[in-house]
């Protein structure tokens, strides 16, 4: 009697049973993975939005360009763990003070490109007010700059010509 053949058949049957049991496991894990990817993508965009606002705030506060209405787009790209942020800012109007400006009104455009090529780029656009005040510290007048974000929205890059490509 050939027992090797029987053992082989038994082992193959066992493997078949195991395989059938593994199918729903694999399906469950695939669902979990895709679901987690969706969540991580949304978290990535949310964090990028927060980063874009802070990046725009920084470039507006440190800009020394005159308020001419032309977009300033030669700003450096910043890398995040989940993608990159490319900013552009544009001073649209100002209210003068005795020396310099009291208010500057800005529009900003920050394009977020995810490292995941399957995700579309998003443009975070909005407006901000740069605000110069001169409170006195003791008898010494000091100049402070504050940047207030007054509007923010997400757009497709194709829908906004000023968004960096």
């Amino acid at each position, binding site marked *: 009697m050939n027992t090797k053949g029987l053992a082989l058949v038994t082992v193959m049957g066992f493997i078949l049973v195991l395989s059938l049991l593994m199918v729903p496991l694999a399906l469950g894990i695939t669902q979990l993975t895709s*679901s987690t990817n969706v969540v991580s993508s949304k978290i990535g965009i949310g964090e990028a939005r927060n980063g874009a606002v802070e990046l725009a705030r920084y470039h507006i506060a440190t800009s020394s360009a005159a308020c001419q209405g032309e977009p300033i787009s030669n700003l450096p790209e910043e890398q995040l763990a989940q993608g990159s942020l490319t900013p552009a800012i544009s001073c649209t109007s100002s209210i003068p003070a005795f020396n310099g400006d*009291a208010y500057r009104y800005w529009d900003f455009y920050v394009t977020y490109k995810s490292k995941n090529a399957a995700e579309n780029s998003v443009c975070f656009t909005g407006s901000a007010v740069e605000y110069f005040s001169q409170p006195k510290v003791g008898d010494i007048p000091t100049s402070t700059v504050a940047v207030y974000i007054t*509007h923010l929205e997400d757009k497709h890059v194709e829908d906004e010509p000023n968004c960096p490509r």
Partner: protein
Amino acid sequence: MKVHKRIQGMTLLEVVIAMLLLSILMMSVAFSGTSVLLAVKNRVDASSTYVLAMNKAQALVISKGESFANSATFNVTNNVISYHNFEAVTGTNGFTLKTASIDFKKELNDAGVSNVAVAVTTSTTDPNIVVVNLSTVDKTGRRYENTVILRKLINAAPLLPKKLRCSFETPTTCSVPLLFPAVSFFPTTATTTTGSVFSGSTFSTATYSLKGASDYDESLTIYKYLEIETSTSATLVQIPKMKGLDSTVSNELWVKVE
């Protein structure tokens, strides 16, 4: 040479016994292996059900929270976020107030995730942050938890609009629409205060009033306009400190109006 036939090979009986033992071994391996796999499968299935529900809940909270980022002010009552967007009216310096709310529990029920409990709280360290806690418990008592942090990114400070549209060449009373409404002047809570204007080489007194009142809620009135009243002509006008809806205070500054 005499050979013992018993050691030349197994008898049929021995083969049958060996096969029987092997089959018992294989069967026990098969059943124990299957039961282990089934236990793992049950755990993974249950986990995936709850983890998928939590992921769906988290994705939904983040999606609904996007509009919250653009809100000027908000409050949280009974796990519902009520917020206000101020949208500029095209062609004017005015704005309209749009109210909205996010009821995460209702949104989750509508999305078929009814077994997830939601708790919404305002951060104790940052008034612009809302913390949304999601939790659910499976049949075996295992607890699944997740937290989403939503951040309001708008500063609702009462600032001047792009164009003042006022001439101070003569004594005047000018009403300036504010970018976001003011609650009061600061540090006083009054809606009328005095300040200065400058012309030539002299300062003179100006009176400031908050106008265009409307009820934000039962306990709070907001003002859309800053009225500046001068008794002389002016080249520089002092803008007083004002407090906004989200408690942002705009600092005092002077603007050139000639």
